[in-house]
């Protein structure tokens, strides 16, 4: 994050300009320096408390100790990830290669979405849209189907499970259904040979 601002100068206002809101900029500021925002006289390590905040939930008292108003929703998590990735990429405007890092993001096992509940499908698909919509430069993002045995119909089902919005960001569809589907018996026989 420090690198993202070029000369290393950033403050909460810079983070607020980046996120466009106070809550996420406060979380980012806490990530940058958990000790600066934490209440004085803490008996708990602010870093440990912040990790609990990021990966679980905190009680009201713990939130107060961190100087944060509420817990993260899943949507907040993806927005936060979007800004962290943006910082990793470099926040300076323009396409000056010297001030940017190229991000290579792989989301593997795309077909697992088929087993998700409708709510989880929507949360994840919208989360990916949040990540994809944050900038037009320096990102290569793969949504990769890990199962090589899926046919075209099944691949269509997977795409439908993601909804329609995400595909407006799609630049290339590099999927290829196998010419011959391997049967379960062949897989078992092959596994026995190894």
């Amino acid at each position: 994050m420090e690198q993202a601002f070029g000369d290393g100068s950033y403050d909460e206002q810079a983070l607020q300009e980046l996120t466009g809101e106070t809550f996420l900029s406060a979380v980012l500021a806490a990530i940058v320096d958990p000790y600066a925002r934490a209440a004085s006289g803490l008996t708990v390590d602010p870093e440990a408390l912040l990790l609990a905040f990021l990966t679980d939930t905190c009680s009201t008292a713990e939130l107060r100790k961190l100087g944060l108003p509420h817990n993260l929703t899943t949507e907040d998590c993806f927005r936060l990830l979007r800004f962290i990735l943006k910082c990793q990429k470099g926040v300076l405007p323009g396409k000056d290669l010297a001030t940017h890092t190229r991000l290579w993001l792989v989301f593997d096992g795309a077909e697992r979405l088929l087993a998700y509940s409708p709510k989880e499908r929507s949360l994840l698909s919208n989360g990916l849209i949040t990540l994809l919509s944050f900038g037009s430069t320096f990102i290569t993002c793969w949504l990769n189907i890990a199962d090589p045995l899926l046919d075209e119909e099944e691949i269509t089902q997977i795409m439908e499970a993601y909804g329609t919005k995400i595909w407006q960001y799609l630049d290339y569809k590099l999927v290829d259904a196998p010419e011959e589907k391997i049967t379960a018996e062949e897989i078992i026989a092959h596994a026995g040979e190894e």
Partner: protein
Amino acid sequence: MSFKPLEQPAMRKHAEEIIERSLCTGDSIFVLSNFPFTVLKELKEQVQQTWMAGYGGQGRPLVNGLRGQTFELPWADEHPARTLWNRFVEMVGLSGMR
């Protein structure tokens, strides 16, 4: 945009071409694929080399390079969307986010 399904070797070649093109413009690309993971890894290494060598041979070495992150989508029984975020936090840690 290209939505035409391609044969495996041609698909790989096509992937190399579009990645190289995106490197030259700095543009972002979003790709749906069903490559074996090893192929994705090879492509990433190839991009890394091209990028570090100076932007497609333009002779300008890039100090920032390429930063790769791989997220395996969680299984259905573990609050997948939230788990994906938690995996990121576990992967990079607080210091990695700074």
